[in-house]
């Protein structure tokens, strides 16, 4: 594997990690809000709180890792995306900041206020919508470089394009689906029957829109970036596998069986789709301005980054394992004992 492919794979993997754990977080925020209005908050609040408390900071790091890494491996993305994304990027930061800070304030600090729950719930949907526009823009066609070398985001085009909206919708329903499927597994582990009923319903309700919007995005790419669509067709089997994993995951939840496996299949479903999408997008990071071969960092830096990355993983993997053993897979902690 060349350094270029290795670099983008590493970054893509961290983005995938962020996608899964941030979805759980964002979706949980929305469910907390929704359950507050629908009067079921007391049922699900505890399990969500117990899961999110020790990990919210880790979730954030996955994201930081991705954007620091992409500037390291592909410095030109900083130039193009940095200039074009000033406004959406800044709004995204503000939302993330409010959410992160208030999460901690609320948890360790004082009582909950209703306007804050609304903000917390709304940000659970607004952030994924904002972040998903970066993926849309990377398809090309939404930025242009004028004669002064100024990079301009074609905002109007972005807001009126059916492709960008299909990506936003996919992001939203995925967040709710992934989160609900995880919480179903977690509630079952906690033997919290009341919470389990609530979140299982959420999972099943959001499963159908998820798969429909995935199909919709798939075909929206056909109209927007034909080259990418053709490459996706070449590896169509990956997307078929993703669909199969989806069916297995939902069936398991439907039959209330093997919920741990069910969530693993959810991850596989998104894994296949996400890596398939990414692989077909290569060699471009930002179509057609930044490609992994032409805009890769110099060789010395690439070697150094890969070296540090491997050393970093040696530290991180056992630490993450420790977190999982102490919190996620520790039955007495999960039950709140």
């Amino acid at each position, binding site marked *: 594997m060349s350094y270029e492919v290795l670099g983008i794979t590493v970054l893509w993997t961290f983005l995938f990690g962020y996608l899964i754990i941030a979805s759980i977080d964002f979706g949980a925020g929305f469910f907390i809000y929704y359950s507050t209005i629908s009067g079921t908050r007391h049922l699900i609040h505890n399990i969500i709180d117990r899961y999110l408390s020790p990990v919210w900071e880790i979730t954030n790091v996955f994201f930081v890792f991705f*954007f620091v890494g992409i500037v*390291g491996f592909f410095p030109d993305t900083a130039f193009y995306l940095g200039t074009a994304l000033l406004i959406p990027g800044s709004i995204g930061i503000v939302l993330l900041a409010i959410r992160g800070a208030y999460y901690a304030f609320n948890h360790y600090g004082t009582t909950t206020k209703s306007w804050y729950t609304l903000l917390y719930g709304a940000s659970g949907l607004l952030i994924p919508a904002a972040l998903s526009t970066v993926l849309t823009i990377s398809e090309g066609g939404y930025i242009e470089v004028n004669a002064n070398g100024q990079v301009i985001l074609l905002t109007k085009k972005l807001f009126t394009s059916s492709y960008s909206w299909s990506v936003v919708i996919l992001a939203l329903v995925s967040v709710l689906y992934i989160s609900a499927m995880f919480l179903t597994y977690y509630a079952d582990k906690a033997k919290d029957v009341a919470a389990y009923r609530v979140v299982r319903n959420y999972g099943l309700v959001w499963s159908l829109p998820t798969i429909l919007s995935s199909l919709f995005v798939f075909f929206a790419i056909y109209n927007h970036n034909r080259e990418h669509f053709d490459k996706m067709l070449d590896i169509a089997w990956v997307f078929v596998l993703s669909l199969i994993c989806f069916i297995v995951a939902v069936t398991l939840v439907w039959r209330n069986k093997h919920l741990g496996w069910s969530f693993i299949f959810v991850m596989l479903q998104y894994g296949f789709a996400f890596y398939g999408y990414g692989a077909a997008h290569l060699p471009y990071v930002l179509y057609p301005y930044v490609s992994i071969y032409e805009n890769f960092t110099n060789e010395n830096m690439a070697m150094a980054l890969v070296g540090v990355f491997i050393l970093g993983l040696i530290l991180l993997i056992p630490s993450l394992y420790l977190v999982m053993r102490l919190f996620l897979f520790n039955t007495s902690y999960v039950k709140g004992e």
Partner: protein
Amino acid sequence: MNYDPVVLSRMLTSLTLGFHIIFATIGVGVPLFIGLAEWIGIRKNDFEYILMARRWARGYVITVAVGVVTGTAIGLQLSLLWPSFMQVAGQSIALPLFMETFAFFFEAIFLGIYLYTWDRFKKKTTHLWLLIPVVLGSSASALFITIVNSFMNYPVGFTYLDGQIVGINPYKAMLSPAMPSKVAHVLSSAYLTSALILAAIAALAYLKGQKHRYHRKALKLTMICSFVFMLSTALIGDLSGKYLAIYQPEKLAATEWHFETTTQAPYVFGGTLDENYNIKNAITIPYGLSILAFNNPNAEVIGLDQFPEEDWAPLWIHYLFDMKMSYVAILTAITTLFVVQLVRKKGNIYGKWLLWCVVISAPIAILTIEHGWIFSEVGRQPWILRGIMRTATGATKSDHVDLMLLLFFLLYLVLGIASTRVLVKMFRNNKAEDELALYEN
């Protein structure tokens, strides 16, 4: 004012960093003292110290949260506001940025574990061990990010050819001559500031009538640490001056209004400048600058005459430096006085005026950090990469930076008010005495 993305980008970056460093400093320093208190508590089998660690940790989480989100903000803003600079930095200095993320990751993981496992382990020391990676991670974050800043002050590890950066050596780029003194100064002053903040909390509680043993212990522990870190910070600060004299003489010269290269250079404090660069109304200490720069009253100090005027830093950094040094003098006096009272047989460390001095030392320490950073950053203007890239070249050409400046100003205002309120509420309604009584029952 006309729309100028360069000026606005600089304003927004300084706003974010100015806000972030308050929380970053606490983030780097406080874990050390949490660990110290817990360690003493375990060793002496004294629950009061353990509770101290717990209470500090509880407040620490709030500051960490703000530190994390503002840190994320500055991380992204680097690319959003300085895209051309990051394009170059990505080639040359991405390694320490990347390593910083790892350190942050490491810290985040173990902080989460530490906070939720107070009573989970049979052996008390197991829990204490969990704090080691937090201390290492937070200090390593400071180390790596300061390395990036050192590179911007004194770029090394590449060849500059026809406007292009070639022959990059990522490891050499990390070992800028600016690095050792900068890193040491940042770490030492973070420990000092955090110790003073914790000391001020204890002193304030004592002044408000909570004369419990708990607060006495907290005050003594943190003030002794403050004294030690005051000494090390001052010593390292002196080394920083000597670094400047050799490697960034134009910064030192602008700071000291040293216009002509001379031997036996005087140290200038305060004063004003007229349009011909004549210094008026200043206090001058003969030989001061030569001693500061080279430990030798007869040493030659390079003046601003050696540099074209367009490369000069703004001359008002002189005042910044003077103010910073005044703060340092006050802090040195307070910490020394406290320690003198502590070791003197008839000394009284609980005198009202001395406790008030301790209380005000915390905001002064934060002001020192702010002034120090503004001095350091403005002092390398007009360069974003000294000698390589002008700040104006690195800035975004994007529209609406003004709007974003307003947006972030509001964000920091809200975060600042909210975090203060949460912290005050957290401890006002839950005094240490009450908590101790609860555990004794």
